[in-house]
C-alpha cells in the first residue's frame, strides 16, 4: 500500500511538472538580469551562441525587467489597457444580452425555440476562420473596422455564453416558476427574483470562460485591427533579441497575472461550466 502511495505521489509530481513547467520557466527567467538571460537562453536568442540552460532559481533576483517594462515601454501599457477594456466590455455585454436570452431558451416553451437553439449551437461550433471574411465585410459596411467595436460587438453576441447559461438555467425546476405565476408574479419579476439568483453559478462560469477566451484573443484582433495602438496585449510580441529578451519575459508574466488570478478565484465555477457543456439537461 505504501509503495502504491509513493507511486501515486511521483505520478502527481510528474504531472504538476509537465503542466506547470512553462510557468516556472517564464517566472524564473523574468527575474534575471540581462547577462544571465543571455547565458540561460544561449543560441536561442539572435546573436548569441551556446546551448540554453535554465537554472532552478536566478543567481541574482532583480525586478529590473519589470521596472523597465512598466516605465519605459509605452506600447505595452497601451495594449494592456486595450485588452482590459475590450474584455470587460465583451463580458458585461454578454451578460446583459445573453442572460435574458438564455432564460428564454431555458424556460420559454415554444415549439420553434429548439431550432433556434440549434442555430446557436452551430454558431458556437463554427471556427472563427470560417466567418472571418464575411464578418470583416459586415464590419466594413458598418464602418467599424479598425475600431474597438470590431472586437467588442461580435464578442458580445457570441453564442457560447448563451449556450452555457442555458444549460445551467434549464436546471431551475419548472414547478418553482409555476408557483410564482400562480402567486401572480410577472414574467420579468420571475426572471429577476427566481432565475437570476438560481442561475448565478451558470453566469459565473460563463464569465470566467469568456474572460480566459478573450484575454487570449488572437485571430479577431489580428484580422479586424490594423493599428497597433488598438491591439490587445495578447498580440504583444516584439522580436526577441539579446537586448529586449528581459522586457519580453516581464511582459509574459504580466500578461499571465490577470487570467491566473481569475483562474484561482473561479476554477470551481469553471470546472462546473465545462462539465455542464457535456452533460446534464
Amino acid at each position, binding site marked *: 500500500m505504501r509503495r502504491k502511495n509513493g507511486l501515486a505521489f511521483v505520478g502527481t509530481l510528474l504531472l504538476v511538472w509537465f503542466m506547470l513547467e512553462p510557468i516556472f520557466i517564464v517566472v524564473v527567467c523574468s527575474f534575471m538580469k540581462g547577462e544571465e538571460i543571455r547565458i540561460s537562453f544561449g543560441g536561442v536568442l539572435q546573436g548569441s551562441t551556446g*546551448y*540554453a*540552460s535554465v537554472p532552478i532559481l536566478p543567481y541574482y533576483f532583480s525586478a529590473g525587467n519589470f521596472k523597465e517594462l512598466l516605465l519605459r515601454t509605452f506600447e505595452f501599457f497601451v495594449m494592456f489597457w486595450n485588452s482590459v477594456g475590450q474584455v470587460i466590455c465583451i463580458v458585461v455585454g454578454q451578460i446583459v444580452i445573453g442572460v435574458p*436570452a438564455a432564460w428564454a431558451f431555458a424556460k420559454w416553451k415554444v415549439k420553434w*425555440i429548439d431550432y433556434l437553439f440549434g442555430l446557436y449551437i452551430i454558431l458556437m461550433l463554427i471556427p472563427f476562420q470560417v466567418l*472571418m471574411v464575411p464578418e470583416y465585410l459586415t464590419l466594413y459596411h458598418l464602418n467599424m473596422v479598425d475600431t474597438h467595436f470590431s472586437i467588442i460587438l461580435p464578442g458580445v453576441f457570441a453564442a457560447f455564453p448563451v449556450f452555457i447559461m442555458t444549460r445551467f438555467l434549464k436546471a431551475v425546476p419548472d414547478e418553482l416558476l409555476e408557483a410564482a405565476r400562480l402567486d401572480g408574479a410577472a414574467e*420579468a419579476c420571475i426572471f429577476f427574483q427566481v432565475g437570476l439568483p438560481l442561475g448565478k453559478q451558470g453566469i459565473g462560469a460563463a464569465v470566467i470562460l469568456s474572460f480566459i477566451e478573450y484575454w487570449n484573443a488572437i485571430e479577431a484582433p489580428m484580422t479586424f485591427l490594423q493599428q497597433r495602438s488598438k491591439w490587445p496585449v495578447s498580440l504583444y510580441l516584439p522580436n526577441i533579441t539579446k537586448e529586449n529578451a528581459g522586457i519580453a519575459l516581464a511582459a509574459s508574466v504580466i500578461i499571465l497575472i490577470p*487570467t491566473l488570478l481569475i483562474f484561482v478565484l473561479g476554477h470551481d465555477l469553471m470546472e462546473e461550466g465545462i462539465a455542464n457543456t457535456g452533460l446534464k439537461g
Partner: protein
Amino acid sequence: MKLPYRKSQTKWTYIFRNNTWGFWMLLPSIVGVAVFHVIPMAEMFKRSFANNTTKAFAGFQNYISVIGNPSFQLAVKNTILFLGTCIPVLLFFSLLAAYFVSKKKDDIRKTVMLIPMAIPVASIVLVWKLMFSRYGLLDKLTGGFAGGVDFLNSKWAFGVLVITYVWRNIGYDVILWAAAFNSIDRCIYEAADMDGADRFMQFRYITWPCILPYGSVIVILSLLNAFKAFREVYLIAGEYPDQSIYLIQHLFNHWLADLKLEHLCAAAVLVMIVVSLSALLFQKALDKGVYS
C-alpha cells in the same frame, strides 16, 4: 395543450398577447447574432458562387478551383492529419487521467491539469522558443543523436503542435470524462464486487458502456478546441510556418491578404459544411446524454 382563447381571437393573437415575454428577452440577442453572424454567413454563401472580378453568378467555378488548389490541398491534408493525430492522443490520455482523478470529488490534480487552458499564448511563446528552438533545451537533450534540430521550423514542428494541443486541452477533457464517470451509480460497482468482477471487468462491462454516449460530445468539443491551436502556431511560427503545420487558417489569412474573397468564401463554405455536420452529431449526442 389546449389554449383557453376566446373565439374572437385566433390562436396566434392569444400567444402574442399572453406569452410574449420570452420573445422580448430573446430579441436583443437574436438581432445581434443575426447582424454579426447569420447575415455574414448568408453573404458568404452568396459570394462563394460569384465570379472573382465581375461578381456575376459563376456556379461552382470557385469550388472547383479551390479544390484543385495545391495550397488548399496541403492545408486540408495537414489539418486532417493534425486532427486525426491529436484528438485520439488527447482522448486516450484524458480518459486515463480522468480514471485516476475522478475517484475523489475535488481532486487537486484536476485543477492543475486545467491551468494550461488559462495561460495566454503570449505568455508562453518565449518558453516554447527556449525549449524547442535550435540550441534550445530539447535540442540540448537530444543533441547526441539528433544533432542540432530546430523543432519549430522543421518537420518536427508537427509534433510540437500536437504536444502543445494536448498540454492545453487535457484538463478540459479530463473534466468532461470525470463528469461522465461520476454520472454512473456507485451501487452498480458494489453489486459487481459482490459478484466477483475484477477491476478490468468492471471497466469493460460497466464504465465503458456508460461513458460511451458522452464520448461523442467530448470528441466534438475537442475538435472545436483544436481549431484554436492556430493561436500557438501563429505566435510561435509566424505567418509562414513549416510546411508540416501549414493549416487551413494560414491559407485563409493569405487569401484574405491577397483579397481572393470569393475563393475564400467557397473554401469557408466547405469547412462550414463539415463543421455543421459535426454540430448535428453533437446535438444528437447531447440528447442521448440527457436521457440515458
